[in-house]
């Protein structure tokens, strides 16, 4: 088992190197640069040329890559071309809302998704099953930004129960915080739980058709232990995979959520910096998000060990 864990951890290193090269290339392949955006609409070629030289954007791409790679290896994530603030500072400013949204949204998605998925599988073919499946299909298919605006229109503009925009820190005002995250968290939970429901339902249905479940039932075992002790445990591997993927998807999904609900989190930071071609921040943010994703996948791999004894072999 130790060898398995060691191998998994070691595999992360080349992945991160690849991610680094890929993010740098992507950012530089994309047309447009910060000099043009910073100069503004009225600026002409001379202004842009001047700014490009001042920012060092006129250096060869390879030089820029080695400079960036060197800084990143030393733990220096660079600083924003626009505000002059370090990436660490910017991330620090934006971390709380994103953590709040992803933890609360993710937890709700799991708490809703798994029971609903199990229930739909247990009552496969029933009205309940169809209802849950329709909910899941809509949750996956309806675009997040559209659903977000509908939530705003219904609950913030018409009913005025929640704010249209903004985020209140949990340390500042607990009820204000709850109000500010209710709609965005609902959006994340609806789309997240929909994926979990589908995967859980499919996985449990498959297990329920297995011979050993039929045997258990034939032996007279009650529904509850059949479902929770045997079926759910056996069907857990694909569910865990989905939850792992969902954690990564939540982080990137907050880009839309934070933009729609005007929440100053990491998602909006990514959207803004991509729009402004603020390369140092974009590169570092992509690296951070990719590292997080890799970390979650590593955790999922390690979780398999506990749920599936075959992995330990």
């Amino acid at each position: 088992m130790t060898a398995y864990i060691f191998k998994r951890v070691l595999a992360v290193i080349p992945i991160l190197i690849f991610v680094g090269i890929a993010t740098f290339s992507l950012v530089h392949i994309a047309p447009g640069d910060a000099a043009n955006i910073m100069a503004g609409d009225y600026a002409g070629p001379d202004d842009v040329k001047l700014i490009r030289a001042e920012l060092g954007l006129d250096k060869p791409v390879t030089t820029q890559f080695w400079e960036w790679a060197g800084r990143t290896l030393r733990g220096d994530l660079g600083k924003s071309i626009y505000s002059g603030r370090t990436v660490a500072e910017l991330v620090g400013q934006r971390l709380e809302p994103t953590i709040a949204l992803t933890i609360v949204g993710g937890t709700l998605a799991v708490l809703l998704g798994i029971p609903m998925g199990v229930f739909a599988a247990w009552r496969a073919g029933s009205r309940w099953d169809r209802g849950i499946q329709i909910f899941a299909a809509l949750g996956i298919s309806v675009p997040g930004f559209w659903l977000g605006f509908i939530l705003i229109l219904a609950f913030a503009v018409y009913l005025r129960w929640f704010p249209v925009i903004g985020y209140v820190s949990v340390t500042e005002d607990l009820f204000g915080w709850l109000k500010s995250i209710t709609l965005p968290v609902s959006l994340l939970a609806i789309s997240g739980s929909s994926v979990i429901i589908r995967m859980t339902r499919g996985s449990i249905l498959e297990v329920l058709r297995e011979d050993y479940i039929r045997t258990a039932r034939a032996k007279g075992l009650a529904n509850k232990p059949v479902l929770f002790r045997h079926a759910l445990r056996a069907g857990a591997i694909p569910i865990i995979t989905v939850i792992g993927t969902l954690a990564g998807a939540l982080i990137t999904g907050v880009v839309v959520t934070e933009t729609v609900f005007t929440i100053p989190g990491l998602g909006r930071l990514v959207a803004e910096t991509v729009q402004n071609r603020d390369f140092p921040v974009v590169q570092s943010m992509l690296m951070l998000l990719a590292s997080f994703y890799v970390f979650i996948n590593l955790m999922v791999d390690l979780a398999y060990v506990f749920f599936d004894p075959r992995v330990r072999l």
Partner: protein
Amino acid sequence: MVFRKKMWMAAITALSLVAMLVMACGGDTETITVVETVVVEKEVEVVKEVEVEKEVEVVKEVEVVKEVEVVKEVEAPQTDDRYGGELKVALGAAISTLDVHRTTGTTAYEPSFAVQERMMAYNSDLQATPLLVDTWEVSDDGMQWNFTLRDGIKFHNGVPFNAEHAVKSWERWAERDNYGSLIFGFVDDISVTGDLSFSIDMVEPTALILEALARIGGYAPVMMPPEMYNVAAAEGADVLIGTGPYELDEWATGDHLRVKRYEDYSPADSAASFMAGRKDAFFDTVDYVVIPDSNARVAALEVGQVDLLGRDVPADMVDTLTANPDVRVAVATTSPAREGAWIDNVDGPFTDARVRRAFAMAFPVEDALIAGHGDSRFYTLCPSMMACAGKWGGWADGSEGVYNYHDKGGLEAAKQTIKDLGLVGTDITVLQAGDRARFSGPAEISRQTLDAMGFNVIFKQTDWATQTNWREKPELWDVFHTAGGGAWAANPLLNSSLAKNKYWNKYQDESGAMTAGMESLARASSADEQLAIVKEMQNVFWQDVPYISFGDSFGVGAVRADVQGSQSLYSMSWNVYNAWRSK
């Protein structure tokens, strides 16, 4: 079992009700606890003997005995009931920098208008009038300008504003701004002649000096302390300090920037008029909140989470907002932008002025304005080179047979020209920035027009950031769409698209007539002379067609109905001072 279920349901319902009640309730405390540091002083008589005059002089000096902290409760900082509260201004994009000499991007300017000031400022007649300047005079031959600054003005960091700050700030602006380099071509020397006075010696006279001190649009000639002007503009100062009625309180990048009333502000004596005259900071704080999505901005205004949208209300939201009794909508007709199709003058078929003119003749200008703005309330057809609402626009000279002429024979004539020149089927690349609605619609009109003329149109759909990059390379495009506002739209000297090889269209001005016009305009000493020159330049414009100018388009601002005093001239958010909330 059933009873337990009911108990749970009742408990959850009760908890929800309590939570909703607590969320719905909330009040603001009216009294303010103020901790003041009071300097206790006593007067001490000091006897000084002045040897030379053999006179005894008694001087009163103030000796600080001690500082004590006094805690007291006050109702409000001012007795005028217009004072107090917070104004929330919605911005569509993040404030990228605190240094307005670093960008011409407009969001950086919004807080700057409240925090920083120019030496001269435009009044509502768009005349440059003294703001930080007390008096000024120009010699009869126009070769020397003398300025005296108002006394008693302090920067927000407590440093008294003086002539050296004024000159250094203005020089920093001039290094950055096109207008600055134009003006400095006329300037021989600027010298500080006293603590509050400086003079400008000219190489040759120009009537544009005062305009250059009041400049809006492009880079802003605002006054800064050494902490700002000693930092290279390209690097950008990381502080925002000025002499204005508000001072920087907090900047959370990408989220909001808050300014608070500057208690030591020294306002001008004259009556308030647009950016000139007396400024009163009635609101305690002004919070500039970044809301990238336009629907969210409008919704936030409707429910009162923000108070003001400067000038970027989407056209399709105007009727909804107008119907809302809690909101006031204003179309800024006095401050138009000029929109148009920018043409590549140095690569491809449009290097030939006849082809550019043919494109202009075939172009359905009104269709493009409708495509960009949707409604005739937000634009006006205007055939002049400069904005019709400005002082150098409003006549049709030179535009006959070219401007908005497509259905009067323009398209047919253009097709013939293209045929005669053997250009039928030639590739023409049109760029469309899909994320800017006001430009993407007109780009589609360009595509249709060029197609109808007989070109083979390559239509490249992209985003604005990419378009800004592609337009750098003439081989990648032939037509793109953009707009210019403020002084850029009103003053040909500030419109780089008319200058030789200056803007992305790279106008070549083969005849030299436009360049000669610019030089004459800069040297003209009277308004009548300037007007005659601009009219002549307009003839050249429609002959050469460096780009196609569509007409005047107007931004739409909206403000909560209880906010009084906000002006719609240019952008409402430029005048957050002198605005207050009715109680």
